[in-house]
């Protein structure tokens, strides 16, 4: 079911991001899916996530559909030109994968193929336009397609203070091109989301707030220093210090639970990134 459909039904939508395998063995991916599928509304698969080459998300989304799990496929601007983007979108539509989230993707310098060329033939707004055109039976060049797609298009946005002014402008363009829902980058401060919700209220789009589980204090500090759009407040980092591994798992879950509880009244859903801790997702959802 389309993400927007779920939101229309009044559901607080929970999506969960699971990394696509780096390799051809997908058992691990499916094991993780089994851990979360009873607790979440959809599973989201990244597109060469964090600029690390991985299996194309379409294959994983197809496997998800076979298991009756609603897929959400990410598509970045970095790795394909407009021919590849459109053909992949048609492939997704053919296999019935309809929830698409458009993103720019991390810089190649952060990933595992640092010499790769960044394509950026189309920007996010243009990809959204391409998908919307396909829903109307056309491609970007205006050619008529054999049949029309039925995409539900979302966009991934940052709401960190640094990129906010430009971000809001970009978001407006993306919405104008046909984005139907927003997923945010991981957020840890409810008040940051609150501010964003105020400024984004004129867009009248459902917002699903992103939240990556923190696995250790050092990992949180690493996010702060190395990922420009994410900020974990010091208070949370301190909360995670000085615990044993076992206790850290509990503390981390508690941080996530508290965050979601606080933001639940403000937004329409949460996009949970378990960072390999898929087995704790059901605990978290139950505790909400």
């Amino acid at each position: 079911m389309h993400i927007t459909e779920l939101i229309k039904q009044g559901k607080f939508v929970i999506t969960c991001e699971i990394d696509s395998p780096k390799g051809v063995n997908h058992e691990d991916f499916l094991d993780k899916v089994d851990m979360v599928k009873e607790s979440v509304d959809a599973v989201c698969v990244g597109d060469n996530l964090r600029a690390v080459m991985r299996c194309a998300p379409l294959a994983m989304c197809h496997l998800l559909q076979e298991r009756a799990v609603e897929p959400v496929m990410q598509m970045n601007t970095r790795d394909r030109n407009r021919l590849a983007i459109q053909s992949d979108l048609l492939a997704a539509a053919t296999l019935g994968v309809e929830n698409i989230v458009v993103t720019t993707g991390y810089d190649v310098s952060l990933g595992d193929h640092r010499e790769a060329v960044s394509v950026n033939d189309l920007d996010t707004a243009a990809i959204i336009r391409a998908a919307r055109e396909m829903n109307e039976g056309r491609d970007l060049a205006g050619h008529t397609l054999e049949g029309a797609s039925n995409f539900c298009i979302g966009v991934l946005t940052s709401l960190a203070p640094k990129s906010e002014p430009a971000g809001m402008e970009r978001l407006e363009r993306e919405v104008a091109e046909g984005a139907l829902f927003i997923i945010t980058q991981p957020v840890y401060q409810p008040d940051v989301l609150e501010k964003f919700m105020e400024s984004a209220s004129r867009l009248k789009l459902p917002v699903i707030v992103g939240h990556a589980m923190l696995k250790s204090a050092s990992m949180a500090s690493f996010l702060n220093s190395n990922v420009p759009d994410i900020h974990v407040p010091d208070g949370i980092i301190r909360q995670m210090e000085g615990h044993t591994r076992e206790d850290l798992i509990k503390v981390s879950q508690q941080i996530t639970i508290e965050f979601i509880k606080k933001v639940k009244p403000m937004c329409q859903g949460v996009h949970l990134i378990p960072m390999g801790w898929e087995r704790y997702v059901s605990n978290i959802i139950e505790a909400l």
Partner: protein
Amino acid sequence: MPTSSEVEKILVVSSQNELAELAQQAMGTSFEVIRAQDQQEGLEKARKEFPEVIILGHLEPQGTTFNLHRRLREGWITRNIPLLVVDIDTADRSRRALTMEEGLQMEADQYISLVGEDGQALSRLAEPIIRLRERVGKHLKERLNTFKEAVLDPDIFCVTWEQVAGRGAFEMQQEEIIENAMKAARRKKVHAVSVTDNPGGNPAISTEMLCTEIKKLGIEPLVHLAFRDKNRNECESLLFGLAALGVRNILMLTGDYPSRAGFKGQPKPVFDLDSVQGLQLVDLMNRGIDYEMAGRRVTLAPTDFFAGACISPFKQHESELLGQYYKLRKKIEAGAQFIITQLGYDMRKFHEILMWLKSSGNNVPVLANIYVLPYGAGKVMNANQIPGAVVTDKLLQDIDAERKAEDKGREARYLRAAKMYAVAKGMGFAGAHIGGHGLAYETLEYIIEKGEELDARWREFIPEFDYPQKSGFYLFKKDEKTGLNTREEASRQEKPSRPGIVLLSRIAHSLIFEPKSPLFKCLKPMARLIDRSPRLKPAFTYLEHLGKVILFNCMNCGDCALFDVGYLCPVSQCPKNQRNGPCGGSYNGWCEVYPNERLCIWVKAYRRLKAMGKEEEIGGNMVPPCNWELWETSSWLNFYMGRDHLAAKTGIARESCPEKGQDK
């Protein structure tokens, strides 16, 4: 882990020299910065040098830092050492310690990214140095033994809270201990939570395990280690386990005699070590046990225990009391770093310990035992049903009167504890060891706060703690002005035994067992002959045993301690086999196990030695634990062949046991 006197070490593992320089700059000369350039060297040094903190930077090739970080985190030796991953000059991605993927899976304690300006070495910049110093300092502080700091700091009045471990795995008593520890950890008024070891000789959940859990709650535990139930190997093994899990505070006790509550009957009393020997073991472990295995010397990593012992000044007789102080002298010599008193309410007695320490030139911090005493417990203690705990008739009457109040004497009880706190602090104790059945945390905090409030008026309360034992002996003369003690020693009037037996034994001893005596010189070759004869040896051993059974009720330990205990056998006549002085359980001179029936052998030994003016020997003579290799062998032959513990004193050279083939 090094002791505080040594220079503390910080290990920096990075292929960039700059990081080590930065660390040295940040930490100054009181720290030694050890460098390692690659994974293998880093791992080896982390395992062998026991750094206080490990700083991990960029290593070639990419991915090595993450690998090493994981191995350090998972390794048994290194997993509790704070691990900091530091990125310097983050503009250059290829020189970063971790990739994005690795960073998101990081399990280090801390990640720091230090960015410099173009072309400037980081070690010249103040900001990154300060940040690194702060971060490393934070971890060093977390590793401090806060109980030890509090005990040793003269400006801190240390508080420990005693918890009594109960029988069972899932009982309310255990639930309450953990709840209490959690509250104590949160409120930060208590420096350590101590847990008793099979209290009263009854089976109970392991203090070691509870203390390991308490440590995780964020407060220092104090493990009671009683020698009643564990032999020396078990002690060592438990201590290794505690050291590995970061539990460092130990209170070494003889332990009450086993109760009858054991599984299918009374348990076997072990008492393989006494508290003096236990302290020696810990001292050795702290220096790093050194031994030989298959012709190779092995040195174990030093542990970081902070070990203390107990003393009971609440003894009635001179002989009983002096035994306590002689043994305390040995405990301090063996390495006791703090002392906790037994339970009592006579302030002059509390004061006596401080006076004894001062007059004997010892400067060991002492914690005063403060037990919140309700009538029921008082009655039990008054009847001597809790070994060593002294509640006099007068005190019991006072409590009896107090309980007629509306609150059943609760307020008076808490106030008494608070006043004890104030007086202990005023007199110069290093802290208070507070206990009480079912004592709620809130009450404990009330006692501490009230005690602090009354602190300045401590002298006023001394008369309220005038609870002498009936014709009880004090080491010092009373100071009538303060109600405490003067510096002048009291005369020791206790009647010594008739010197007959000891004198005879001494004479026999000096003839037969004194290496300088002519008789010794004749007996030694004879002993060698018997020792080497397969026919003579069993007969001799049998006859010796027979004779010594008649004279001393000998138990054939083969490592004779008659010379150490005034010619009394501690194996047959002391239920706790104490070779270094009395335990704390005696009552009016009687043995804890046989009250009103048998005198404590150390009371008898004192009286015997006093007859010859040699009672001081008790405090000077460090006796090692019985060597069980000698069990059921002839102690005389062992003596002449230099195989028993006396060889170290007499200087008799060891000759191996022929039938054993080799010298073990």
